[in-house]
């Protein structure tokens, strides 16, 4: 890895990455165009450059208030952040413990349990909305952010468990055995040794859990009884109508919704690449 490739290869790699970025970004430029236009039409016109640049869509979205003067956009944003952050924390906690058990213990029912986690992903979600609604009602969690957090984190768990288990499996057990010899408890080993080493996988699962909650609107729109309790995607989806969509507002909303995701990824990627692993494994 220490040898640098020839400059020809370097140019090729830069070229490949640049092409990939262009393909990734091109369709999104249309979203930007629609967002900064002053019309509500789907911006499929011939040119990518808007004739008039206007921040009207963003302004309308951000200043959205209800008749009582509650700043709805702020509330929706806050709800989304709370639900997504809560989902991420709860999901990570549940997934880490379960994945650690699956990775480090050989107990009766282990294989069945693993299979069960996988199986839950196989039943099409379309069919689950009404039974979920009834369950939430029985639990008294309808209309609460807690209910949403719970549902989202459970939805995200199977992937997180599998991802983390796969990663835990690659962490050498010798480290933990050594710590055990030194008299560390199971919990300390888990918290102080395994978790820091699994940072890259934690970053992936955190992003995944966050996204599960961040973009969901059907369940959120079904469970919440008050406009002030809606999340951002619900508010955004309201611009999509039966016959026509207010594309300018929707696009502006899509931009607003995407920015935190990219920012979160930008913050997480330090952990994603070059964590402590390289150093830790040497030990």
């Amino acid at each position: 890895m220490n040898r640098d490739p020839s400059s020809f290869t370097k140019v090729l790699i830069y070229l490949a990455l640049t092409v990939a970025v262009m393909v990734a970004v091109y369709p999104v430029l249309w979203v930007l165009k629609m967002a900064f236009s002053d019309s509500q039409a789907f911006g499929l016109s011939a040119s990518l450059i808007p004739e008039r640049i206007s921040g009207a869509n963003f302004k309308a979205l951000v200043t959205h208030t209800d008749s009582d003067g509650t700043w709805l956009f702020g509330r929706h944003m806050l709800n989304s952040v709370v639900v997504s952050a809560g989902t991420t924390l709860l999901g990570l906690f549940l997934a880490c413990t379960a994945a650690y058990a699956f990775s480090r213990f050989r107990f009766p029912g282990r294989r069945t349990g693993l299979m069960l986690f996988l199986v839950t992903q196989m039943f099409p979600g379309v069919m689950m909305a009404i039974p979920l609604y009834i369950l939430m009602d029985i639990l008294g969690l309808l209309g609460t952010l807690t209910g949403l957090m719970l549902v989202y984190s459970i939805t995200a768990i199977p992937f997180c468990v599998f991802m983390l288990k796969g990663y835990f499996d690659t962490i050498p057990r010798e480290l933990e055995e050594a710590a055990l010899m030194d008299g560390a408890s199971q919990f300390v080993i888990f918290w102080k040794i395994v978790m820091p080493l699994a940072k890259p996988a934690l970053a992936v699962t955190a992003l995944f859990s966050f996204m599960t909650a961040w973009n969901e609107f059907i369940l959120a729109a079904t469970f919440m009884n008050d406009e002030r309790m809606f999340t951002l995607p619900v508010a955004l989806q309201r611009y999509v109508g039966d016959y026509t969509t207010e594309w300018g507002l929707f696009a502006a909303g899509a931009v607003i919704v995407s920015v935190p995701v990219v920012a979160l990824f930008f913050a997480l990627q330090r952990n994603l690449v070059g964590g402590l692993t390289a150093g830790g494994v040497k030990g």
Partner: protein
Amino acid sequence: MLRNGIKALLGLLIVLLFPASPSLANDLTALEEQREVRLWHSYRSAELAALQEVVERFEQMHPHITVRMLNIPHDAFASRLTSSIPRGHGPDLFIFAHERVGSWVPNNVVVPIDEKPVPVDLDEFLPETIEALTFEGRLYGLPLAFKSTALFYNRALIDKPPKTTDELLDVARRLSEPDAGRYGLAYPADDFFFHSAWLFGFGGEVFDEETGLPSLDTPGGQRSLEFVQDLVLRERVVPQEATSALVTRLFNEEAAAMVVNGPWFIGDIDDRIDWGIALLPEVSETGRRATPFLTVEGVMIAGRAREPELARALAAHIAAEGSMTRATVGRQSVAWSPAYDDPLVGEDPVLRAFREQLPFSVAMDNRPAMQAVWEPARGALGQVLRGGDPEAALVRAQARLRAAVREAPETTSPLPYVVVLGLLAFVGAGAWAHRASKSAAATGGLRAEIRQNRTAYAYLAPAFAGLLFLVLVPFAVGLAIAFTHHEGGEFSFVGLANFRDILFGESYGVTDPLSFYFTLVVTVLWTLANVALHVTLGLMLALLLKEPWLRLKGVYRALLIIPWAVPNYITALIWKGMFHKQFGAINGILTSIGLEPVSWFGSFWTAFTANVVTNTWLGFPFMMVVALGALQSIPSELYEAADVDGAGRLQKFFRITLPLLKPAMLPAVILGMIWTFNMFNIVYLVSGGEPGGSTDILISEAYRWAFQRQEQYGYAAAYAALIFCILVGYTLGTRKLTGGEERA
């Protein structure tokens, strides 16, 4: 200032014109304590502003009543109503289009509004709108507004709108230059909603008037298909594959002189365009006027409403007193006829045009059977617009429709099934315990081993409890539904009949795109293609981004996850636009390098490719992120050692990277397969199943049976259960193949 002045004037006018009905108003003002009435709707922009204004006025008139409005996205509205109203968490009243009434009556989502006297004169509503909201002799809701299509035209290009289809063709021919992207007329020709104008104009029908059964294959229906085939393929005066986005674009660029569209189109028209609106023309061949579908929005009383009296009063207020505001502020074609006596409404050119179109429109059937019509009818239009024979297309559509309107299977007793299930559970549990205790024998028995692993169970408990409760319970409910038949709000136990009909039904041959087996093959192809591309691209990019000398890594990475970050509802539609035959960017690139443009949605493989390309674009960032994390699990010493041994790039990749990546990547790959297998929204948004439903995947069918074909939840659940079995089988298969992986 002027606007406020007008508003004040209007308010005064309304109070003078429509005094509230005295008896009820007295009742309500006599209220002592504060009461609350809940109204749900999915209005947007101007219509929303108008509704808010109307409701505020109601609250001012009745200070003891608070109206709590909830604005729900249209896409989630129907499911929200059907899940919450039967549980008693619904609103008191809601606003919805008339065509669902028939499916909602049996489960009490909506109750007749004329149960008690309504404080408004029903004869003052336009009769067509009352009729649309009537189901089996009862009136469900008060009509608010009606919507149909009419003819929009550009005044700079056309001075007098055509009166007959012959005139329309003459004008359109004169103004069309298809090769330059200019068309005389533009509308989504493959959309049955828009086609309805021609269908009825040529004397076709959707349901037989006497028997009430679907009858798409009439001579009139066939003539209407021949007519649009002429418009699009022979005369080329209407663009192909026109989505409503393309129609808007063409009209705004003055590249389409006329457009068939509804009132919602007005907001999309550019200010620079000088446009007019007129009645749809008369069909020259039959002498009948083109007659589009009519939708009537009504305000309806919900089942289990807590305040039905207040709800009725509010409904009457919105429908009658509120009509002026809804017409002038909300730009609605209101159903309250006295509103048209006011020149502000009666002389408004747009409102007048739709009012004139009203007698020449056909309200969509409000029975559940209507929902099953859209897909076969759209299939027939698609087939004809790709050059297919209209008669054959209609025969096929009729056959599909008959298959969708399935007869209820015989009801059976659930007892034998319960017994078998109990036995299976017993045997299964026994076998499991036996195996577990056998393997545990070495370590001192099952109990001892369970006790030994207490920590493991403690670690698992929280996740497992959540999973059990929130996923497995709904799952078991879903599975149980698969053995039932749902009709008119009631489930009856039918045993394995649903499964039998799916697997061995005789509606379609095995090679027909609509058969279970054909769809299964497509689904498998779809899954394999997507996951292979996601993993390859994701891994390649992750490897490139790992190069130590690379600058701006963070920026590259962040830009590459953008497709994952932006809501896919909008980006998938942008991709659909890019695949347009004539106006899309992809054919633009192809022609600029000297290739022939491709009709992407015209054949199976190209449409399939378009779907896969879109989904690859959406899905590779996720795999890239997973791969970036997984690459960290490989100790760098191994590469250093390989460098010492003089290994090349490829050797290192195949000998070190790939095998060591497996444990960390495999979960994402397996789960990616499962998700992709069930990912139908991209197919729905991009190809829409075209051509002829061939690019649809299994889950789309489950969805259709549940929501588009008379709510056959049992049949849909059976589809879902089969999908589940296939996926379980697949996972067990791969576990056999990679069996060694577990024993790490």
